[in-house]
């Protein structure tokens, strides 16, 4: 369980995170979405007590992070896979953490095995690791204390498709067994595939949050006709607003209304479907585009 209440972080006059509130329930994966610089990492660092918030508070399992007696046993944190000592071996990095948390040493081997780092890789210095291997090591580190909560910042970065698929399964399974997962990404498809809930942030503010399916349902309808101009006129006549997208016209209405409008005007359709596949992307773009433009102008 993660609770974030009105978290705000200002650097000078510029708010990096502005009045952010959301909750992650046990048994769910929450996707934390936003373009680069939207404030995802800052929010996550504030949850983990690594950055002091200007205002607001965050709790993990009911306690402020800094008051958790042995945080590693409660929350698994992976904020930056490259934040490992280049001169230590993968095994040594985990051994240090396991010792600090008071864990059995066998956990180290078990978690290395779990994330697919074999004995050869474990004995290598982190300097020689690829980004994908560092992500795996970071994930092993986060899982080391068998926590009930996972906070992962862009964990899919650098993983190969097979690795991404594997991680998705691991997180889904973790949540299905009662765990809480907060997972940030700018890779929309990645989050769409695994998250139950979405929190979308842009320019430091939450621009949308809620159940993934509900949010996606608002994605609109994609419609295409050979006679593009006629279709536009038909939609306009029916009072439906249409926007250009790469796949055709994107209409903020359900398929039935769009089909009826076309039929009434006698326009033959080439395609008519809910914007499900790219729905989240569209949502993401529409929700964050304005914000980032504002950012750029500021």
């Amino acid at each position, binding site marked *: 369980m993660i609770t974030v209440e009105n978290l705000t972080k200002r650097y000078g006059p510029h708010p990096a995170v502005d009045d952010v509130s959301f909750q992650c329930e046990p048994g769910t994966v929450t996707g934390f979405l936003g373009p680069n610089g939207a404030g995802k990492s800052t929010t996550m660092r504030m949850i983990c*007590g690594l950055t002091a918030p200007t205002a607001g508070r965050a709790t993990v399992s009911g306690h402020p992070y800094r008051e958790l007696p042995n945080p*590693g046993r409660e929350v698994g944190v992976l*904020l930056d896979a490259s934040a490992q000592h280049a001169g230590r071996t993968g095994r040594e990095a985990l051994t240090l953490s396991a010792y600090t948390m008071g864990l059995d040493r066998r956990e180290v081997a078990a978690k290395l095995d779990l994330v697919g*780092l074999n004995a050869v890789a474990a004995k290598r210095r982190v300097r020689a690791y690829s980004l994908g*291997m560092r992500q795996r090591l970071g994930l092993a580190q986060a899982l080391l204390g*068998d926590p009930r909560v996972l906070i992962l910042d862009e964990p899919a970065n650098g993983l190969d498709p097979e690795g991404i698929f594997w991680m998705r399964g691991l997180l889904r399974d973790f949540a299905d067994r009662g765990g809480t997962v907060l997972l940030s990404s700018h890779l929309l498809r990645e989050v769409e595939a695994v998250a139950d809930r979405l929190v979308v942030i842009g320019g430091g503010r939450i621009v949308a949050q809620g159940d993934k399916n509900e949010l996606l349902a608002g994605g609109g309808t994609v419609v295409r006709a050979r006679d593009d101009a006629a279709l536009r006129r038909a939609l306009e006549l029916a009072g439906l607003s249409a926007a250009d997208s790469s796949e055709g016209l994107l209409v903020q209405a359900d398929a039935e209304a769009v089909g009826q409008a076309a039929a009434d005007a006698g326009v033959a359709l080439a395609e008519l479907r809910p914007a499900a596949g790219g729905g989240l992307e569209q949502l993401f773009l529409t929700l964050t585009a304005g914000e980032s433009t504002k950012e750029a102008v500021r």
Partner: protein
Amino acid sequence: MTTTTTPTAGAVAPRQHTAVRRPSLLRLTVAELRKLVDTRAGRWLLITIGLLTAAIVTLQLIYAEEADQTFLNFFVPSLLPVSVLLPVLGILSITSEWSQRTALTTYALVPRRERVVAAKLLAVALTALASVLTSLAVAAVGTLVASAIGGAGTWQFDWSLLLNAVVIQVTSVLMGAAFGLLLLNTPLAIVGYLLLPTLWGVLGEMVKPLRGPSEWLDTSKTMEPLFSSDAVTGGQWGRMAVSLLVWMVLPLAAGLFRTLRREVS
């Protein structure tokens, strides 16, 4: 890729823990000691300190007058080079967390940062004590060799010197750590540590009005009596305390304040 295997998916489940306790200061100190030796840089720094001690005793066995080849004369000179290198160890133990960005993991596991800092100071102080033991051991070996090859080999030792040695090494490693805490950057801290007291020493020599305060604030002057076998007087301890207040306690306090508030990213 040969280094990753197909992972077994779905073997993680959140577990309920029985009363999780926070890691003790002893545990954190042991972890910090381990960090001092588990990288090449740290290990070689410690090995260099040991080798330097051995080298100085060896040089004396070769070049010193036979009558001067005593336990005392082996022990005292080995302190100075070690006291120059130990601060680097103190600095690195603090700053490498930031330069290697392991602070992210360290402070996520132990969010009470003052406990990590305390453990680090304890760890480097223990290392300083160990260096004194090494100096004693190497001096003892030197004395044995000296008596075998015709040197004086006398064991006479003034125990107050042992206290002096401990004070020298522990304060120098802590001074380094203090600069590390304050500047949180390896090159800056090393340069700062080496340059500032020296600069102050030079200024104290050149600028007349500074000569008085320099008697109290220049650590190279105030610590000097520790290297001689004459007993250190109360006044000398006082000056030492004042200079350490300025060069060790103040940077430690300011550095702790800075470390507690700093954003970890």
